[in-house]
């Protein structure tokens, strides 16, 4: 039972990082990002490849954050020029380009065969303790991300990005530079998603391109909308609901062994889609509201 709870908590932490960083992009700054899974994938592959080649974990994690942020830089530049509906499509296309690249560059990523045997930190502690130690690491990183985002929002810079979200023209008229702020936020959020990817790769220890489809992005959007956009507590609550849907459908299958794995996966997907539609229609502000109309 403890092992199960620890496993669920680790996955919760990883998704919480994704939701928090997406909230930083959209909820606090108004950047519409539908390619979040791209940063997640870059982080996962970077850290996996680095550590598989003998580099220490800290190097893997740092490289994961740095490369994800670097990938966000040109997107941030595009974000300055594009209308928001175009940006949604371009970011979605970006994440698909990332997936195609990791599928095609077999010399680096082994393509669809995936990267097996990714080392996991604390493995020497033995089973049970290793997972708990890993959960500790995840918890520390989530806490650090929460503190970082809170610090960002409360700072003058944070007031600037929220003002950009609410009325960019006014901000410009006041002599501020929305462009630089937007690019920085894009890169910071991407770095957090990249670290989430590294945590995921080292926990699952086996990654294939199919784990990084746009569906992951949509899951994270759903979590953010459900919890309430533009709120740290909302992001955490939404993630908790998302994880309960994942785990609930697994338990349902234990109760009704007649249901096939594929059918369960589809029921779960249908529920996610339905919730997304229902919340947009009837509770656009999420369970904990802050902003009107997503």
């Amino acid at each position, binding site marked *: 039972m403890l092992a199960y709870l620890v496993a669920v908590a680790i996955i919760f932490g990883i998704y919480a990082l994704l939701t928090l960083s997406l909230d930083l992009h959209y909820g606090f700054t108004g950047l*519409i990002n539908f390619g979040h899974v791209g940063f997640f994938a870059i982080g996962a592959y970077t850290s996996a490849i680095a550590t598989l080649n003998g580099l220490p974990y800290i190097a893997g994690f740092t490289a994961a954050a740095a490369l994800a942020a670097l990938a966000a830089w040109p997107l941030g530049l*595009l974000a300055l*020029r*594009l*209308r*928001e*509906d*175009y940006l*949604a*499509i*371009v970011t*979605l*296309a*970006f994440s*698909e*380009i990332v997936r*195609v*690249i990791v*599928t*095609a560059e077999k010399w680096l990523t082994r393509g669809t065969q995936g990267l097996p045997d990714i080392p996991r930190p604390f493995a020497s502690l033995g089973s049970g303790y290793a997972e708990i130690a890993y959960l500790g690491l995840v918890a520390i990183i989530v806490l650090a991300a929460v503190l970082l985002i809170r610090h960002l929002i409360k700072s003058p810079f944070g007031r600037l990005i929220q003002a950009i979200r609410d009325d960019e023209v006014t901000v410009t008229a006041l002599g501020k530079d929305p462009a630089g702020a937007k690019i920085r936020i894009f890169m910071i959020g991407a770095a957090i998603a990249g670290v989430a990817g590294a945590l995921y790769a080292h926990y699952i220890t086996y990654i294939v391109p199919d784990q990084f489809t746009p*569906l992951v992005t*949509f899951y994270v*959007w*759903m979590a953010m*909308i459900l919890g309430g956009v533009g709120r740290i507590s909302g992001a955490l609550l939404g993630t908790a609901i998302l994880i309960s849907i994942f785990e609930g459908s697994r338990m349902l299958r234990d109760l009704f062994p007649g249901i096939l794995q*594929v*059918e369960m996966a*589809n*029921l*779960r*997907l*249908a529920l*996610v*889609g*339905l*919730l*997304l*539609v229902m919340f*947009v*229609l009837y509770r*656009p502000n999420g369970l904990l509201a802050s902003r009107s*109309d*997503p």
Partner: protein
Amino acid sequence: MGVAYYAALAINGVVEGLIIGLAALAINLVFAVARFPNAATGDLMTVGAYAGIAVQQAGSRNLWLQGLAAVGTGMALSVALYIVIFRALRGRSMLSSLLASIGLAILLRSLLTLFVGPDQYVFRIPMARPWRPMGIPIQPNDLWLAGIAFAAVAASFIVLYLTPIGRQMRAVADSLTLARTSGIRVDRVLVALWLMVGVVTAVAGMVLGIRTVVTPELGWNMLLPAFAAAVLGGVGSPVGAVVAAIVLGVAQELSTPFLGFTYKIALAFAVLVAILAVRPSGLFGRAERVR
């Protein structure tokens, strides 16, 4: 690997481009009038293709009957989605409708997989020997499929540019308030629009299903290339969408010998990102005006 090989690729690209073009047309119709990128477009195509398959499984090999079922289902579903969901979201932000359409896309696809299973189906059509004018292999099936796709595009343009309801659609696309003030019944126009979207997506789904195999992912896989074509063509420009789609289709096919099959898919996105970096409003798009 001579000229004939590339010519065959180019022809294949035109046919593929026409299918993408139909999807892009459906996207741009909604984009122009209802003002959001409709992520459920691909899955509407899938539903249309499965409606055709259902008729086949029921015992009829008549392609016209199958097509009729696809178009009927597409129209009904499309209007139902408008009435139940997108009408309520009118006047809300672009993102609300986009998120709802993503939710719908996921919902439609998972329900479809749940009820028909993940297996693939094929339309059983008579096989024909390819013609070889000047050594270029041409599938006769491709020709009439391209003809149907082209006819659907032409019919949409006739409705859009030569009929009263089409004129009203364009008026609503231009300015909803002005259209309403001039006595246009916006709701009626929007129902007509979604009916048209249903027809176009169903035809696209059928044509794609006949050319390839029908799986629950059939339309979803077309969505991003179609988005790319719609944006490249310029939002609100149905003609641009179709032209961009054919260009993309040909470019994708011709690049296959150089880039390989995996990167062929990425080409559309790469072109999209590159062109938007230079021309943020798309190839044929007008610069965005301040509302």
